[in-house]
């Protein structure tokens, strides 16, 4: 950014810390995410005053208070809608939505899918801890079936959402995943999302050490179960890259031992493929199905951005009719004159 004297100032992570005391539970995965994002911000080269973080309700939604940018802590589930109004009227801003699994996928599910389908220029970070934390431990729409919580003492009955499958199904033009403790991987995905024009959706697996501790230990602790997606490269992972992913004739993807199928049989990641089928198949590869979880950028395609299209219509209308003339508008249609007595 540029100071008044014209000197370019290189900001640091510290410049993005607000004066507010961070009040998440000690040990919460949100701390790690906050640190990474404060670290990524200076890399983007966007002045602080042009960054806006909008959130809904939930633990994750406290995020804007801790960022030395503009911010709004709004209503449960509605952040994508509020951010849409801001983004389409202010294309000069970089607008971010911070949300959780309950906020984004339960009460706010409708706004999420419509923001993604419109491709509004928003960066949406979904902190998924598979539990309701702020309300003290009820199951969430991403909790596993049969989850025993305070509100489901005999186990939850509803099948969970897969956030990435939803985003891809909702025509998202950028879809990625990271995990709270993986600084490098998280920073890369968030930075890629920031540089994507249009709506970018990032699921961040986040540990709630109070109400759902260890929910992601299978990838948090056991790094061998992380599948890092690299665009254009065969998908391999695990110790000595001995494992990989293949795509079957029916389109589904699964984990294999590379030794069993040969390197040439491996699926080559193509984040920018015209069709979302590949990204969707990868979103279905989970710890439950395959014992491993993909991370990185699943999908990144160019698609017309709602904000741009709206701006183009405004420009086209002015081109066609000239800048709006209020006097002429009020006199449009049939008019008649009642003369004065004079």
């Amino acid at each position, binding site marked *: 950014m540029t100071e008044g004297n014209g000197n370019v100032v290189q900001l640091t992570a510290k410049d993005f810390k*607000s004066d*507010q005391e961070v009040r998440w539970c000690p040990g919460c995965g949100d701390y790690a995410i906050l640190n990474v994002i404060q670290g990524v911000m200076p890399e983007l080269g966007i*002045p*602080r*005053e042009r*960054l806006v973080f*909008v959130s809904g*309700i939930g633990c994750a939604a406290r995020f*804007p*208070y801790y*960022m*030395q*940018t*503009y*911010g*709004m*802590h*709004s*209503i449960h589930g*509605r952040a*994508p*809608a*509020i*951010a*849409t*109004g*801001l*983004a*389409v*009227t*202010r294309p*000069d*801003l970089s607008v971010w939505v911070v949300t959780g699994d309950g906020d984004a996928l339960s009460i706010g599910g*409708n*706004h999420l899918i*419509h923001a993604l389908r419109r491709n509004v220029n928003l960066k949406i970070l979904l902190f998924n801890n598979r539990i309701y934390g702020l309300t003290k431990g009820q199951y969430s729409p991403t909790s596993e079936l049969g989850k025993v919580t305070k509100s489901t003492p005999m186990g939850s009955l509803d099948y969970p959402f897969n956030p990435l499958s939803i985003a891809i199904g909702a025509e998202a033009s950028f879809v990625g995943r990271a995990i709270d403790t993986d600084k490098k991987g998280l920073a890369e995905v968030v930075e890629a999302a920031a540089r994507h024009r249009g709506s970018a959706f990032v699921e961040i697996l986040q540990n709630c050490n109070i109400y759902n501790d260890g929910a992601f230990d299978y990838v948090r602790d056991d790094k061998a179960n992380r599948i890092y997606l690299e665009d254009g490269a065969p998908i391999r992972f695990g110790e000595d890259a001995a494992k990989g992913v293949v795509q079957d004739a029916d389109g589904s993807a699964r984990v294999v031992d590379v030794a069993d199928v040969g390197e040439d049989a491996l699926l080559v990641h193509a984040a920018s493929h015209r069709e979302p089928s590949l990204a969707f198949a990868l979103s279905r590869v989970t710890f439950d199905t395959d014992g491993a979880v993909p991370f990185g950028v699943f999908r990144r395609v160019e698609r017309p951005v709602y904000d741009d299209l*709206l701006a183009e*219509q*405004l420009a*086209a*209308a*002015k081109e*066609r009719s*000239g800048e*709006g003339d*209020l*006097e002429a*508008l*009020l*006199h*449009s*249609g*049939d*008019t*008649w*004159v*009642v*003369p*004065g*007595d004079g």
Partner: protein
Amino acid sequence: MPAAAAFSLSGRAVPGVARRPFLRVRYTSCIATSKPVEQLERVVIRFAGDSGDGMQLTGDRFTSETAVFGNDLVTLPDFPAEIRAPAGSLPGVSGFQVHFADHDILTPGDQPNVLVAMNPAALKVNVGDLPKGATLIVNTDAFSDRNLQKAGYEANPLEDNSLTDFHVHPVALSSMTVEALKEVEGITSREAERSKNFFALGLMSWLYHRPVEGTLGFIEAKFSQRPEIAEANTKAFKAGWNYGETSEDFAVSYEVAPARLAPGTYRQISGNTALSYGLIAASRLSGLPLFLGAYPITPASGILEELASLKEFGVRTFQAEDEIAASGAALGASFGGALGVTTSAGPGIVLKSETVGLAVTLELPLVIVDVQRAGPSTGMPTKPEQADLLMVLFGRNSESPVPVVAASTPAGCFDAAIEAARIAVTYRTPVFLLSDAYLANGSEPWRIPDVASLPAVPVEFAQGPNDGEAFLPYRRDAETLARPWAIPGTPGLEHRIGGLEKQDETGNVSYDPENHDRMVRLRAAKVAGIAAGIPELEVDDPGGADTLVLGWGSTYGAIGAAVRRVRAADRKVAAAHLHHLNPFPRNTGDVLRRYEKILVPELNLGQLRMLIRAEFLVDAVGYNRVRGRPFQAAELAEAIAALVDS
């Protein structure tokens, strides 16, 4: 003469000036009439037919002709929510009433002098509203056994002497239209039959000497993509006009002289259009880009559609996924420095409550337009009611005061929109703007204001720190109690706001008990203080009255007409009309206490009455009807007279 007698009941036709030869020819496309002409002071016409018969279009065109001619007028479109209810059925009847006069008038008229009924169902639904001696023009072609049965007639009312109270003109509208169009190439006989509404319009235009150039130009423009349809409608229109001129059934035609309105340039305008223009004007006056978040809903959709067509004014319209998103996006736009507006009707406003509450605590401008309709729940979507007042005042959790502005006439929606926006941006608050289905669709002549005379809507964004080097987002303006509007993009003013309670001045999250009490009172005081900047309540009291009629919203016209009648009957009565429902004008209490008796007519069960009784301890009584239609002047006059005499 039967027709003249009909008008004399309510139209006060003056026999002495009847049969004056018609000298003035206003149109060129049709030959001038050679029949005798009668002068009338005012006429109420109702067009009624199937919802697919084009009655709204017919009424609109007749209204435009009437407006251009220079009569004062008020309209009342009355249509079902169903787009195409079964043809010929009673629920499918669509009506359009227009009242026009040679003097200023206030209502669409209680009873039609003329009913144009396109089928038996339209006759059955409307005949009960006709006074004895009214004129009835019926499309005899539609009176088939099947249609009579659908309308629930056991015998044909045209043949069983049940209409002897009326002057009936049986006209074979459909078959004459088809006959007139037989040489038009490229249209089916079904399409030809559908031009019958233009035949009826032509006949009525002849009967009341309406200028026709506007309609002919309209047909040409509207059907420019299908010239054969344009030709058919033009021919049908002229055939209808010529039928009036040649048929012996119509012995006389009528003239209603232009009204003596205040000098100026006029146009006809509906409430939804006026409201849209008012929002655009507010955007221009404040220098803020207009953002409208909306979800389609009757009867508010017209505002979304109107503004969507005016993008050259920099208007961004956003058809959201739901009512909640519509209001949320508008609030987000306000945060960014736009004039954020969301429009809906009652069932949608309910869904916006949480966003309005957020706007209350964020202290950001937001205009929420509620075009009220009959409820509860889905209710009667196309019918007016005034029963959302208490909802917009109190329908939120906790102490969350919101100013309320109400429009009282279709054209008045223009000024009300500017006023709502002015309050919102000046005081950084959500503001409810109340209209209703009657104002939204009704229209009247509007003396177009001079743009230079419109009120100022000054807005200043915060540009720098307000506490030494620091910026306090909740430090208030001493006069308005408004907090600074610091929009993203302003260097050095980065701050966070949210739905959690805020510490006074800093805006930081606070759970301090005394701070919360202070903030609740500050927000209330800010809204109450708006009264200092709004006009005092005006009272229309020629002197000596002990009874005051207090109204708000769209009952303005009916109350005004009723008060005139009561005064004409040598009774003394005062009237006042509220345009601000929260806060009330600062002299409201003084005005109310000046009168011994207060009548509050409302299209609800007494919502304003409850408010003024609670706030001012006055013993107001109500006149309340909740029928999904405006008051009739006659019933109000009766109620007022009864109270005056009591």
